[in-house]
């Protein structure tokens, strides 16, 4: 028996769907799609905050520092890499020293180091003077609280084994209060602990670069001002790249492909549901007919 159309459109093989996804995501690599992009409020705020630090650093002897809390691993590098890159680019070009550090993800600082090295090479910046890598310190809450109290009690050497006090950049940092912004990049959570334990005591601003998935969860903090800004997913990174003028970054390049992929998902949702609705209606009619004939 021939299948009715609503069953047919519900039974497309999943491999065909996969293939279409692959093709649709690939197409914009070769056929560029125009990208009119507005910079969202959260990204703009984050950018302004870093600019503010840069302005201060121009004249100050003891510079303000940004701490990159690199809680991401290769699984989410697609989003976190461009975010870190955009921020590192901004900090390096505008003379804002930064620290790489992680509590949960051993790979985070290693990948971030690679990013920083690449960007630094282009701008003639040097490790030790413009940034430092604390590396991975597996900290439970007690250790973290001590870290807030006294950085040097928890971090004695950088990843290269250089005693941390002899790294030139660290002359700007006596305590965590000299860090002016936390930039937490993550694919899961953990940013709350900065807000809970660091911010009330020291007034250090917290910001986040997160995968799009956890973006919505951050809005209560953005609303309350506990978080100054956010880069949300690839689009956040692309917007930041636009602000920094780093248009060859991974963020901007990827946005074209998002379009077709999104439309495909919406189309699939509609197709599946149309089939479902008609099938249900037919089933209901059949049932009624059976009941009628039964009488």
């Amino acid at each position, binding site marked *: 028996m021939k299948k009715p159309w609503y069953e047919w459109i519900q039974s497309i093989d999943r491999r065909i769907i996969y293939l279409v996804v692959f093709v649709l995501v690939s197409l914009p690599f070769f056929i560029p799609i125009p990208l009119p992009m507005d910079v969202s409020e959260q990204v703009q705020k984050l950018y302004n905050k870093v600019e503010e630090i840069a302005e201060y650093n121009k004249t100050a002897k003891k510079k303000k520092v940004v701490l990159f809390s690199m809680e991401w691993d290769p699984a989410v590098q697609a989003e976190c890499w461009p975010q870190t890159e955009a921020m590192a680019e901004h900090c390096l070009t505008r003379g804002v020293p930064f620290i790489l550090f992680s509590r949960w993800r051993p790979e985070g600082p290693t990948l971030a180091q690679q990013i920083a090295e690449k960007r630094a090479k282009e701008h003639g910046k040097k490790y030790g003077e413009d940034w430092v890598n604390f590396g991975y310190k597996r900290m439970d809450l007690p250790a973290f609280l001590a870290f807030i109290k006294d950085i040097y009690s928890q971090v004695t050497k950088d990843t290269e084994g250089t005693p941390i006090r002899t790294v030139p950049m660290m002359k700007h940092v006596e305590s965590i209060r000299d860090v002016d912004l936390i930039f937490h990049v993550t694919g899961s959570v953990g940013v709350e602990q900065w807000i809970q334990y660091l911010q*009330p*005591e020291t007034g250090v601003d917290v910001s986040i670069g997160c995968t799009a998935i956890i973006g919505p969860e951050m809005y209560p903090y953005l609303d309350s001002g506990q978080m100054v800004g956010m880069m949300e997913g690839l689009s956040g990174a692309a917007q930041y790249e636009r602000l920094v003028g780093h248009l060859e970054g991974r963020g901007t390049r990827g946005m074209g492909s998002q379009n077709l992929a999104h439309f495909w998902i919406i189309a699939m949702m509609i197709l599946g549901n149309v089939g479902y609705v008609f099938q249900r209606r037919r089933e209901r009619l059949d049932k009624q007919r059976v009941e009628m004939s039964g009488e």
Partner: protein
Amino acid sequence: MHATYTMLILSTLFCAPIVYFILAARKGREIFIRPIAGLEAIDEAIGRATEMGRPVLYVSGMTYLDIIGLCSMAILGQVAKMCARYDLRLIVPMTSYLLYPIAEEAVREAYAGEGKTDLFNSEDIVYVPGQFPYAAACVGIMHREKVAANFFFGSFAAESLILAEAGNQVGAIQVAGTISTMQLPFFITACDYTIIGEEYYAATAYLTKEPTMLGSIVGQDIGKLTMTALIVLGVICSVLVAWLSSVHSNWMIELLER
């Protein structure tokens, strides 16, 4: 930051009811918890599985040994009891090596409690480490065993999507409960009923009738009620600030920040 006086008063307001109700519940005080819609769906799903005579799958996701995991194991115990009562086979894939023995014991005890020790097969508690292998194993079981009901209780990560889709494909009744907010959308669209966020703990308390949990839920409710009252008062104050020219600042904020 160190505690202010307001914080100390509020912490007493939040914590005292919790401790009081836990102790009261242990002494045998009756405690009411509103019926949770998703739990009726569990009975329904077990009923359906009994009709079809096919196994039930209990998935605990990326749950580790913490409170969420222990709650999941408590719910597993209850589900296993129901399965044992209706002579159903229950399959439980686990991903944490610390929870695995706890799960095995919970199911074994449940079957023994119903006098169906012979129905229990320790090979149905499967240990699969790693997120994607775990998801693949669950999908494999769903297709191979043609499960009639899926239960998802625990904390979930990206694998929720794969699990919910596969369950939908085999036409199983699915009930989910998780506090992982990010995964809830996928369960809501693909499952027959979903227990949302904090409801997960309430569901555990409702099922197990464990006095500590029950008392804690009541105590927490009082805490939430306090919070609601604070917010309502604060909003009223802020309206007054805009309305009356004689009021210059929000009293509630001043009170809270003292």
